[in-house]
Protein backbone atom coordinates (compact mmCIF):
# COMPACT_ATOMS: atom_id res chain seq x y z
CA UNK A 1 0.00 0.00 0.00
CA UNK A 2 2.90 2.32 0.77
CA UNK A 3 4.18 2.20 -2.83
CA UNK A 4 0.66 2.57 -4.22
CA UNK A 5 0.26 5.71 -2.12
CA UNK A 6 3.65 7.04 -3.25
CA UNK A 7 2.65 6.41 -6.87
CA UNK A 8 -0.67 8.20 -6.35
CA UNK A 9 0.95 11.13 -4.58
CA UNK A 10 3.46 11.52 -7.44
CA UNK A 11 0.74 11.25 -10.06
CA UNK A 12 -1.51 13.76 -8.27
CA UNK A 13 1.42 16.16 -7.79
CA UNK A 14 2.32 16.02 -11.48
CA UNK A 15 -1.31 16.46 -12.46
CA UNK A 16 -1.76 19.40 -10.12
CA UNK A 17 1.42 21.01 -11.55
CA UNK A 18 0.07 20.61 -15.07
CA UNK A 19 -3.54 21.61 -14.42
CA UNK A 20 -2.79 24.66 -12.23
CA UNK A 21 -1.21 26.27 -15.28
CA UNK A 22 -1.23 29.93 -14.29
CA UNK A 23 -0.28 29.33 -10.66
CA UNK A 24 2.53 27.00 -11.78
CA UNK A 25 3.91 29.52 -14.27
CA UNK A 26 3.79 32.34 -11.69
CA UNK A 27 5.51 30.20 -9.07
CA UNK A 28 8.18 29.06 -11.52
CA UNK A 29 8.83 32.64 -12.58
CA UNK A 30 9.41 33.81 -9.01
CA UNK A 31 11.50 30.76 -8.12
CA UNK A 32 13.60 31.20 -11.26
CA UNK A 33 14.41 34.74 -10.15
CA UNK A 34 15.25 33.43 -6.67
CA UNK A 35 17.54 30.73 -8.01
CA UNK A 36 19.10 33.18 -10.43
CA UNK A 37 19.99 35.35 -7.44
CA UNK A 38 21.45 32.30 -5.67
CA UNK A 39 23.47 31.41 -8.77
CA UNK A 40 24.63 35.01 -9.19
CA UNK A 41 25.92 34.89 -5.65
CA UNK A 42 27.99 31.84 -6.55
CA UNK A 43 29.52 33.78 -9.45
CA UNK A 44 29.92 36.87 -7.33
CA UNK A 45 31.70 34.86 -4.67
CA UNK A 46 33.99 33.29 -7.26
CA UNK A 47 34.85 36.73 -8.65
CA UNK A 48 35.55 38.09 -5.21
CA UNK A 49 37.67 35.11 -4.17
CA UNK A 50 39.63 35.33 -7.41
CA UNK A 51 40.28 39.03 -6.94
CA UNK A 52 41.22 38.61 -3.30
CA UNK A 53 43.56 35.78 -4.17
CA UNK A 54 45.12 37.99 -6.79
CA UNK A 55 45.62 40.67 -4.17
CA UNK A 56 46.91 38.24 -1.58
CA UNK A 57 49.41 36.82 -4.04
CA UNK A 58 50.86 40.27 -4.53
CA UNK A 59 51.78 40.54 -0.88
CA UNK A 60 55.08 39.05 0.27
CA UNK A 61 58.05 39.92 2.43
CA UNK A 62 61.69 39.84 1.43
CA UNK A 63 64.60 39.09 3.70
CA UNK A 64 67.69 40.85 2.33
CA UNK A 65 71.01 39.36 3.36
CA UNK A 66 74.34 41.12 3.64
CA UNK A 67 76.64 40.70 0.68
CA UNK A 68 78.93 38.05 2.02
CA UNK A 69 76.28 35.95 3.83
CA UNK A 70 77.18 32.24 3.47
CA UNK A 71 74.70 30.36 1.28
CA UNK A 72 74.40 27.42 3.70
CA UNK A 73 73.16 29.78 6.47
CA UNK A 74 70.60 31.26 4.10
CA UNK A 75 69.44 27.81 2.98
CA UNK A 76 69.22 26.71 6.62
CA UNK A 77 66.94 29.67 7.35
CA UNK A 78 64.89 28.85 4.23
CA UNK A 79 64.43 25.30 5.51
CA UNK A 80 63.39 26.54 8.97
CA UNK A 81 60.88 28.98 7.53
CA UNK A 82 59.42 26.36 5.18
CA UNK A 83 58.66 24.17 8.18
CA UNK A 84 56.26 26.80 9.57
CA UNK A 85 52.61 25.84 8.85
CA UNK A 86 51.63 29.43 8.05
CA UNK A 87 54.36 29.77 5.42
CA UNK A 88 53.21 28.91 1.90
CA UNK A 89 56.56 29.27 0.08
CA UNK A 90 60.10 30.54 0.57
CA UNK A 91 62.00 31.35 -2.59
CA UNK A 92 65.79 31.70 -2.48
CA UNK A 93 67.30 34.25 -4.82
CA UNK A 94 71.08 34.13 -4.79
CA UNK A 95 73.04 37.36 -5.11
CA UNK A 96 73.93 36.43 -8.71
CA UNK A 97 70.26 35.84 -9.53
CA UNK A 98 69.35 39.09 -7.77
CA UNK A 99 71.88 40.94 -9.95
CA UNK A 100 70.56 39.28 -13.12
CA UNK A 101 66.99 40.17 -12.20
CA UNK A 102 68.02 43.73 -11.39
CA UNK A 103 69.73 44.06 -14.76
CA UNK A 104 66.75 42.68 -16.61
CA UNK A 105 64.43 45.03 -14.76
CA UNK A 106 66.56 48.05 -15.60
CA UNK A 107 67.73 47.01 -19.03
CA UNK A 108 66.45 50.26 -20.52
CA UNK A 109 68.11 52.45 -17.90
CA UNK A 110 71.61 53.08 -19.20
CA UNK A 111 72.64 55.13 -16.19
CA UNK A 112 72.03 52.34 -13.72
CA UNK A 113 73.69 49.73 -15.93
CA UNK A 114 76.78 51.91 -16.25
CA UNK A 115 76.90 52.44 -12.52
CA UNK A 116 76.75 48.68 -12.03
CA UNK A 117 79.62 48.15 -14.44
CA UNK A 118 81.75 50.56 -12.46
CA UNK A 119 81.24 48.55 -9.31
CA UNK A 120 83.45 45.54 -9.73
CA UNK A 121 81.74 43.33 -7.09
CA UNK A 122 78.10 42.31 -7.01
CA UNK A 123 76.55 44.93 -4.74
CA UNK A 124 73.35 42.92 -4.21
CA UNK A 125 72.94 40.37 -1.47
CA UNK A 126 70.88 37.20 -1.57
CA UNK A 127 67.15 37.42 -0.87
CA UNK A 128 64.55 35.10 0.61
CA UNK A 129 61.10 35.82 -0.76
CA UNK A 130 58.44 34.60 1.70
CA UNK A 131 54.74 34.10 1.10
CA UNK A 132 52.34 33.11 3.86
CA UNK A 133 48.91 31.56 3.53
CA UNK A 134 47.18 34.69 4.86
CA UNK A 135 48.47 38.28 4.82
CA UNK A 136 47.83 38.51 8.56
CA UNK A 137 50.54 35.91 9.14
CA UNK A 138 53.41 38.06 7.84
CA UNK A 139 53.78 39.89 11.11
CA UNK A 140 54.46 36.62 12.97
CA UNK A 141 57.14 35.62 10.45
CA UNK A 142 58.74 39.08 10.59
CA UNK A 143 58.74 38.99 14.39
CA UNK A 144 60.36 35.55 14.34
CA UNK A 145 63.13 36.90 12.11
CA UNK A 146 63.57 39.87 14.41
CA UNK A 147 63.74 37.76 17.58
CA UNK A 148 65.96 35.07 16.07
CA UNK A 149 68.58 36.98 14.09
CA UNK A 150 70.80 34.91 11.81
CA UNK A 151 74.36 35.52 12.86
CA UNK A 152 77.69 34.76 11.24
CA UNK A 153 80.38 32.73 13.05
CA UNK A 154 81.85 36.02 14.18
CA UNK A 155 78.52 37.06 15.64
CA UNK A 156 77.62 39.77 13.12
CA UNK A 157 74.07 39.78 11.75
CA UNK A 158 73.67 38.26 8.29
CA UNK A 159 70.26 39.83 7.60
CA UNK A 160 70.51 43.31 6.23
CA UNK A 161 66.80 44.11 6.45
CA UNK A 162 63.29 42.60 6.36
CA UNK A 163 60.99 44.76 4.25
CA UNK A 164 57.87 43.86 6.25
CA UNK A 165 58.39 46.73 8.64
CA UNK A 166 58.62 49.23 5.78
CA UNK A 167 55.46 47.82 4.17
CA UNK A 168 53.57 47.11 7.40
CA UNK A 169 51.02 49.90 6.92
CA UNK A 170 50.26 48.82 3.37
CA UNK A 171 50.01 45.13 4.31
CA UNK A 172 47.75 45.88 7.28
CA UNK A 173 45.53 48.03 5.11
CA UNK A 174 45.34 45.33 2.47
CA UNK A 175 44.56 42.79 5.14
CA UNK A 176 41.75 44.99 6.38
CA UNK A 177 40.33 45.38 2.86
CA UNK A 178 40.43 41.63 2.28
CA UNK A 179 38.76 40.83 5.60
CA UNK A 180 36.06 43.46 5.26
CA UNK A 181 35.39 42.35 1.66
CA UNK A 182 34.88 38.79 2.84
CA UNK A 183 32.62 39.85 5.71
CA UNK A 184 30.54 42.25 3.65
CA UNK A 185 30.25 39.67 0.90
CA UNK A 186 28.96 37.14 3.42
CA UNK A 187 26.44 39.64 4.85
CA UNK A 188 25.29 40.66 1.37
CA UNK A 189 24.92 37.02 0.35
CA UNK A 190 22.95 36.23 3.48
CA UNK A 191 20.57 39.18 3.07
CA UNK A 192 19.98 38.46 -0.62
CA UNK A 193 19.40 34.77 -0.02
CA UNK A 194 16.98 35.46 2.85
CA UNK A 195 15.07 38.02 0.80
CA UNK A 196 14.83 35.67 -2.18
CA UNK A 197 13.76 32.77 -0.01
CA UNK A 198 11.06 34.89 1.62
CA UNK A 199 9.70 35.92 -1.78
CA UNK A 200 9.70 32.35 -3.12
CA UNK A 201 8.18 30.96 0.07
CA UNK A 202 5.39 33.52 0.02
CA UNK A 203 4.63 32.77 -3.63
CA UNK A 204 4.20 29.09 -2.91
CA UNK A 205 2.23 29.88 0.23
CA UNK A 206 -0.10 32.02 -1.86
CA UNK A 207 -0.45 29.24 -4.44
CA UNK A 208 -1.45 26.84 -1.66
CA UNK A 209 -3.69 29.41 0.03
CA UNK A 210 -5.81 29.37 -3.12
CA UNK A 211 -6.40 25.65 -2.60
CA UNK A 212 -7.17 25.77 1.14
CA UNK A 213 -10.81 24.80 0.50
CA UNK A 214 -9.62 21.73 -1.37
CA UNK A 215 -7.44 20.78 1.57
CA UNK A 216 -10.44 20.95 3.90
CA UNK A 217 -12.42 18.75 1.50
CA UNK A 218 -9.59 16.22 1.39
CA UNK A 219 -9.59 16.11 5.17
CA UNK A 220 -13.34 15.58 5.25
CA UNK A 221 -13.15 12.55 2.98
CA UNK A 222 -10.61 11.09 5.40
CA UNK A 223 -7.32 11.71 3.60
CA UNK A 224 -4.28 11.42 5.87
CA UNK A 225 -2.02 14.42 6.29
CA UNK A 226 0.69 12.70 4.27
CA UNK A 227 -1.77 12.02 1.46
CA UNK A 228 -2.88 15.66 1.40
CA UNK A 229 0.58 17.15 1.77
CA UNK A 230 2.35 14.80 -0.65
CA UNK A 231 1.05 16.17 -3.96
CA UNK A 232 1.73 19.76 -2.87
CA UNK A 233 5.31 18.85 -1.99
CA UNK A 234 5.72 17.04 -5.31
CA UNK A 235 4.37 20.07 -7.20
CA UNK A 236 6.65 22.37 -5.15
CA UNK A 237 9.68 20.23 -5.98
CA UNK A 238 8.73 20.32 -9.67
CA UNK A 239 8.49 24.12 -9.49
CA UNK A 240 11.96 24.19 -7.93
CA UNK A 241 13.58 21.82 -10.42
CA UNK A 242 12.03 23.46 -13.49
CA UNK A 243 13.07 26.88 -12.18
CA UNK A 244 16.60 25.62 -11.54
CA UNK A 245 16.87 24.32 -15.10
CA UNK A 246 15.60 27.63 -16.50
CA UNK A 247 18.05 29.57 -14.31
CA UNK A 248 20.95 27.41 -15.51
CA UNK A 249 19.94 27.94 -19.14
CA UNK A 250 19.64 31.70 -18.60
CA UNK A 251 23.14 31.82 -17.08
CA UNK A 252 24.66 30.64 -20.37
CA UNK A 253 23.98 33.81 -22.41
CA UNK A 254 24.21 36.05 -19.34
CA UNK A 255 27.75 34.96 -18.46
CA UNK A 256 28.74 34.96 -22.14
CA UNK A 257 27.48 38.46 -22.95
CA UNK A 258 27.63 40.25 -19.64
CA UNK A 259 30.60 38.43 -18.05
CA UNK A 260 33.22 40.80 -19.55
CA UNK A 261 31.54 43.71 -17.74
CA UNK A 262 32.63 42.27 -14.42
CA UNK A 263 36.38 42.11 -14.97
CA UNK A 264 38.89 43.46 -14.30
CA UNK A 265 37.69 43.42 -10.72
CA UNK A 266 38.49 45.10 -8.44
CA UNK A 267 38.96 48.12 -10.60
CA UNK A 268 42.33 49.13 -9.19
CA UNK A 269 43.96 46.11 -10.76
CA UNK A 270 44.75 46.17 -14.44
CA UNK A 271 43.16 43.64 -16.75
CA UNK A 272 46.57 42.09 -17.32
CA UNK A 273 46.88 41.31 -13.64
CA UNK A 274 43.50 39.76 -13.15
CA UNK A 275 42.26 37.70 -16.01
CA UNK A 276 42.47 34.21 -14.62
CA UNK A 277 38.73 34.28 -13.99
CA UNK A 278 36.35 34.71 -16.87
CA UNK A 279 32.72 34.22 -15.88
CA UNK A 280 31.74 32.25 -18.94
CA UNK A 281 34.72 29.90 -18.64
CA UNK A 282 34.04 29.62 -14.92
CA UNK A 283 30.40 28.71 -15.69
CA UNK A 284 31.46 26.03 -18.18
CA UNK A 285 34.25 24.64 -16.01
CA UNK A 286 32.02 24.44 -12.92
CA UNK A 287 28.78 23.62 -14.70
CA UNK A 288 28.19 20.38 -12.78
CA UNK A 289 28.90 21.95 -9.41
CA UNK A 290 26.81 25.09 -10.04
CA UNK A 291 23.97 22.98 -11.48
CA UNK A 292 24.02 20.79 -8.40
CA UNK A 293 23.88 23.80 -6.06
CA UNK A 294 21.00 25.43 -7.95
CA UNK A 295 19.06 22.18 -8.41
CA UNK A 296 19.50 21.33 -4.73
CA UNK A 297 18.36 24.83 -3.74
CA UNK A 298 15.32 24.51 -6.03
CA UNK A 299 14.49 21.06 -4.70
CA UNK A 300 14.75 22.08 -1.04
CA UNK A 301 13.11 25.47 -1.51
CA UNK A 302 10.13 24.05 -3.44
CA UNK A 303 9.63 21.05 -1.20
CA UNK A 304 10.14 22.82 2.11
CA UNK A 305 8.00 25.83 1.21
CA UNK A 306 5.13 23.54 0.22
CA UNK A 307 5.53 21.43 3.34
CA UNK A 308 5.41 24.48 5.61
CA UNK A 309 2.60 26.17 3.68
CA UNK A 310 0.30 23.11 3.79
CA UNK A 311 1.08 22.37 7.42
CA UNK A 312 -0.88 25.45 8.39
CA UNK A 313 -4.09 24.01 6.94
CA UNK A 314 -3.65 20.58 8.45
CA UNK A 315 -3.77 21.65 12.08
Amino acid sequence: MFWINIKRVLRTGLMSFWRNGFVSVASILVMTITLFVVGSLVFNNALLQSSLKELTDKVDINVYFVNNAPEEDILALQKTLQSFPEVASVEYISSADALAQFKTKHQDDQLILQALDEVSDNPLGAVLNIKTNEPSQYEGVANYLKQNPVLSKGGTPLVDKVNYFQNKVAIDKLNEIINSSRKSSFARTLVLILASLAVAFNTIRLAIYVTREEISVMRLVGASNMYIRGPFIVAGIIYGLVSAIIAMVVFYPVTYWFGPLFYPLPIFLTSGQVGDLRLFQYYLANFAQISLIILACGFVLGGLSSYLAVRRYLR
Partner: protein
Amino acid sequence: MIYFDKVSKIYSEESTALKDVTFTIEPKEFISIVGHSGAGKTTILKMLLAEETPTSGSVFFESVNIHTFKPRFMNDYRRRIGTVFQDFRLLPQKTAYENVAFAMEVAGHTDEQIESDVPHVLELVDLGDKLWNFPHELSSGEKQRVAIARAIVNQPDVLIADEPTGNLDPITTFEIVQIFKKINDLGTTVILTTHNKGIVEFLKKRVITLDAGHLIRDDKHGHYVL
Protein backbone atom coordinates in the same frame (compact mmCIF):
# COMPACT_ATOMS: atom_id res chain seq x y z
CA MET B 1 -25.11 4.41 16.76
CA ILE B 2 -24.77 8.18 17.29
CA TYR B 3 -25.41 9.82 20.62
CA PHE B 4 -25.30 13.53 21.39
CA ASP B 5 -25.04 13.86 25.18
CA LYS B 6 -25.94 17.35 26.48
CA VAL B 7 -23.83 18.98 23.79
CA SER B 8 -23.32 22.74 23.96
CA LYS B 9 -21.28 24.94 21.68
CA ILE B 10 -20.72 28.48 22.86
CA TYR B 11 -18.53 30.73 20.71
CA SER B 12 -18.99 33.80 22.94
CA GLU B 13 -21.48 35.14 25.48
CA GLU B 14 -23.66 36.48 22.68
CA SER B 15 -23.19 33.53 20.35
CA THR B 16 -24.49 30.15 21.47
CA ALA B 17 -24.73 27.66 18.61
CA LEU B 18 -26.02 24.70 20.66
CA LYS B 19 -27.35 24.38 24.21
CA ASP B 20 -27.63 21.03 26.00
CA VAL B 21 -28.67 19.10 22.90
CA THR B 22 -29.29 15.41 23.51
CA PHE B 23 -30.53 12.86 20.97
CA THR B 24 -29.75 9.41 19.64
CA ILE B 25 -29.62 8.17 16.06
CA GLU B 26 -30.12 4.49 15.35
CA PRO B 27 -28.57 2.65 12.38
CA LYS B 28 -30.44 2.95 9.06
CA GLU B 29 -32.48 5.94 10.25
CA PHE B 30 -33.26 8.87 7.97
CA ILE B 31 -33.31 12.09 9.97
CA SER B 32 -34.05 15.59 8.86
CA ILE B 33 -32.76 18.40 11.03
CA VAL B 34 -34.72 21.60 10.48
CA GLY B 35 -34.56 25.09 11.88
CA HIS B 36 -34.05 28.70 10.95
CA SER B 37 -30.64 29.98 9.87
CA GLY B 38 -28.37 30.04 12.92
CA ALA B 39 -30.48 27.45 14.76
CA GLY B 40 -27.46 25.12 15.05
CA LYS B 41 -28.10 22.60 12.26
CA THR B 42 -24.69 22.91 10.62
CA THR B 43 -22.98 22.96 14.02
CA ILE B 44 -24.45 19.53 14.76
CA LEU B 45 -23.02 18.20 11.50
CA LYS B 46 -19.65 19.81 12.16
CA MET B 47 -19.61 18.16 15.60
CA LEU B 48 -20.34 14.84 13.96
CA LEU B 49 -17.48 15.36 11.51
CA ALA B 50 -15.23 16.43 14.40
CA GLU B 51 -14.64 19.76 12.69
CA GLU B 52 -15.87 21.44 15.86
CA THR B 53 -15.43 20.38 19.47
CA PRO B 54 -18.22 20.85 22.00
CA THR B 55 -17.84 23.45 24.71
CA SER B 56 -19.50 20.89 26.99
CA GLY B 57 -21.07 17.47 26.52
CA SER B 58 -19.91 14.65 24.24
CA VAL B 59 -20.64 13.13 20.84
CA PHE B 60 -20.45 9.34 20.65
CA PHE B 61 -20.17 7.17 17.57
CA GLU B 62 -20.66 3.49 18.34
CA SER B 63 -20.11 4.31 22.03
CA VAL B 64 -16.77 6.08 21.48
CA ASN B 65 -16.36 9.80 22.06
CA ILE B 66 -15.29 10.99 18.61
CA HIS B 67 -13.43 14.00 19.96
CA THR B 68 -10.93 11.74 21.67
CA PHE B 69 -9.80 10.06 18.43
CA LYS B 70 -6.12 10.20 17.56
CA PRO B 71 -5.44 11.63 14.03
CA ARG B 72 -5.10 8.19 12.40
CA PHE B 73 -8.38 6.97 13.85
CA MET B 74 -9.99 10.26 12.92
CA ASN B 75 -9.17 9.60 9.26
CA ASP B 76 -10.61 6.09 9.54
CA TYR B 77 -13.71 7.50 11.21
CA ARG B 78 -14.22 10.15 8.54
CA ARG B 79 -14.01 7.49 5.84
CA ARG B 80 -17.05 5.87 7.46
CA ILE B 81 -19.04 9.06 6.99
CA GLY B 82 -20.03 10.42 3.61
CA THR B 83 -20.58 14.16 3.36
CA VAL B 84 -22.56 16.28 0.91
CA PHE B 85 -22.57 20.08 1.10
CA GLN B 86 -24.77 22.79 -0.29
CA ASP B 87 -21.78 24.21 -2.21
CA PHE B 88 -20.72 20.74 -3.43
CA ARG B 89 -17.06 21.19 -2.41
CA LEU B 90 -15.65 19.23 -5.31
CA LEU B 91 -11.95 19.38 -6.11
CA PRO B 92 -11.92 21.80 -9.05
CA GLN B 93 -8.79 20.41 -10.73
CA LYS B 94 -10.15 16.87 -10.80
CA THR B 95 -12.72 15.37 -13.14
CA ALA B 96 -15.95 13.79 -11.86
CA TYR B 97 -14.24 10.40 -12.03
CA GLU B 98 -11.15 11.64 -10.17
CA ASN B 99 -13.22 13.34 -7.46
CA VAL B 100 -14.96 10.07 -6.68
CA ALA B 101 -11.78 8.04 -7.11
CA PHE B 102 -9.99 10.31 -4.63
CA ALA B 103 -12.33 9.21 -1.83
CA MET B 104 -11.56 5.58 -2.68
CA GLU B 105 -7.82 6.23 -2.90
CA VAL B 106 -7.65 7.73 0.58
CA ALA B 107 -9.60 4.75 1.89
CA GLY B 108 -6.85 2.50 0.55
CA HIS B 109 -8.67 0.78 -2.31
CA THR B 110 -6.68 -0.76 -5.14
CA ASP B 111 -6.59 0.70 -8.63
CA GLU B 112 -8.61 -2.25 -9.92
CA GLN B 113 -11.38 -1.63 -7.36
CA ILE B 114 -11.40 2.06 -8.20
CA GLU B 115 -11.61 1.41 -11.93
CA SER B 116 -14.52 -0.94 -11.40
CA ASP B 117 -16.50 0.95 -8.72
CA VAL B 118 -16.22 4.61 -9.75
CA PRO B 119 -17.99 4.33 -13.14
CA HIS B 120 -20.62 2.18 -11.49
CA VAL B 121 -21.35 4.73 -8.74
CA LEU B 122 -21.42 7.60 -11.21
CA GLU B 123 -23.82 5.54 -13.29
CA LEU B 124 -26.04 5.19 -10.22
CA VAL B 125 -26.35 8.97 -9.91
CA ASP B 126 -27.00 9.27 -13.64
CA LEU B 127 -23.62 10.67 -14.61
CA GLY B 128 -22.33 7.78 -16.67
CA ASP B 129 -21.69 10.11 -19.59
CA LYS B 130 -19.91 12.84 -17.58
CA LEU B 131 -17.06 10.84 -16.09
CA TRP B 132 -14.29 13.00 -17.51
CA ASN B 133 -15.93 16.39 -17.09
CA PHE B 134 -14.40 18.90 -14.68
CA PRO B 135 -16.72 20.50 -12.09
CA HIS B 136 -16.85 23.78 -14.00
CA GLU B 137 -18.27 21.86 -16.97
CA LEU B 138 -21.19 20.49 -14.91
CA SER B 139 -24.52 22.00 -13.87
CA SER B 140 -25.30 22.49 -10.16
CA GLY B 141 -27.44 19.35 -10.08
CA GLU B 142 -24.68 17.34 -11.74
CA LYS B 143 -22.09 18.68 -9.31
CA GLN B 144 -24.29 17.62 -6.42
CA ARG B 145 -24.62 14.15 -7.95
CA VAL B 146 -20.83 13.89 -8.15
CA ALA B 147 -20.65 14.95 -4.48
CA ILE B 148 -23.20 12.26 -3.60
CA ALA B 149 -21.29 9.66 -5.61
CA ARG B 150 -18.12 10.64 -3.75
CA ALA B 151 -19.95 10.43 -0.42
CA ILE B 152 -21.34 6.94 -1.01
CA VAL B 153 -18.56 5.28 -2.98
CA ASN B 154 -16.90 3.88 0.16
CA GLN B 155 -20.28 2.57 1.37
CA PRO B 156 -20.26 4.74 4.50
CA ASP B 157 -22.24 3.94 7.63
CA VAL B 158 -23.62 7.46 7.73
CA LEU B 159 -24.37 9.99 5.02
CA ILE B 160 -24.46 13.61 6.15
CA ALA B 161 -26.02 16.17 3.85
CA ASP B 162 -25.86 19.85 4.79
CA GLU B 163 -28.57 21.73 2.89
CA PRO B 164 -27.80 19.64 -0.20
CA THR B 165 -30.61 21.11 -2.26
CA GLY B 166 -30.11 24.76 -1.32
CA ASN B 167 -28.63 25.64 -4.71
CA LEU B 168 -30.87 23.44 -6.84
CA ASP B 169 -34.08 23.94 -8.78
CA PRO B 170 -37.24 22.08 -7.61
CA ILE B 171 -37.00 19.24 -10.12
CA THR B 172 -33.32 18.55 -9.40
CA THR B 173 -34.08 18.86 -5.67
CA PHE B 174 -36.67 16.13 -5.97
CA GLU B 175 -34.24 13.91 -7.91
CA ILE B 176 -31.53 14.39 -5.31
CA VAL B 177 -33.92 13.58 -2.45
CA GLN B 178 -34.92 10.42 -4.29
CA ILE B 179 -31.27 9.42 -4.42
CA PHE B 180 -30.92 9.97 -0.66
CA LYS B 181 -34.01 7.89 -0.06
CA LYS B 182 -32.62 5.09 -2.19
CA ILE B 183 -29.30 5.22 -0.31
CA ASN B 184 -31.18 5.00 2.98
CA ASP B 185 -33.24 2.08 1.72
CA LEU B 186 -29.96 0.28 1.01
CA GLY B 187 -29.08 0.55 4.72
CA THR B 188 -27.09 3.78 5.14
CA THR B 189 -28.05 6.16 7.92
CA VAL B 190 -28.85 9.57 6.41
CA ILE B 191 -28.76 12.85 8.31
CA LEU B 192 -30.07 15.78 6.34
CA THR B 193 -30.31 19.43 7.29
CA THR B 194 -32.77 21.48 5.28
CA HIS B 195 -34.94 24.57 5.09
CA ASN B 196 -37.12 22.94 2.51
CA LYS B 197 -40.56 22.12 3.90
CA GLY B 198 -41.46 20.13 0.78
CA ILE B 199 -38.62 17.69 1.30
CA VAL B 200 -39.54 17.01 4.93
CA GLU B 201 -43.22 16.53 4.10
CA PHE B 202 -42.31 14.22 1.22
CA LEU B 203 -39.94 12.04 3.24
CA LYS B 204 -42.28 11.41 6.20
CA LYS B 205 -39.27 10.44 8.34
CA ARG B 206 -37.98 11.50 11.74
CA VAL B 207 -37.56 15.27 12.15
CA ILE B 208 -35.43 17.08 14.75
CA THR B 209 -36.31 20.75 15.08
CA LEU B 210 -33.82 23.27 16.43
CA ASP B 211 -34.42 26.83 17.53
CA ALA B 212 -31.60 29.13 18.67
CA GLY B 213 -29.41 26.18 19.61
CA HIS B 214 -32.12 24.33 21.56
CA LEU B 215 -33.68 21.05 20.44
CA ILE B 216 -37.38 21.88 20.59
CA ARG B 217 -38.97 18.90 18.80
CA ASP B 218 -38.00 15.34 17.93
CA ASP B 219 -40.85 13.58 16.06
CA LYS B 220 -40.65 10.07 14.64
CA HIS B 221 -42.77 10.91 11.59
CA GLY B 222 -42.54 14.62 11.95
CA HIS B 223 -43.61 17.58 9.91
CA TYR B 224 -41.90 20.84 9.19
CA VAL B 225 -43.17 22.96 12.07
CA LEU B 226 -41.54 26.36 12.48
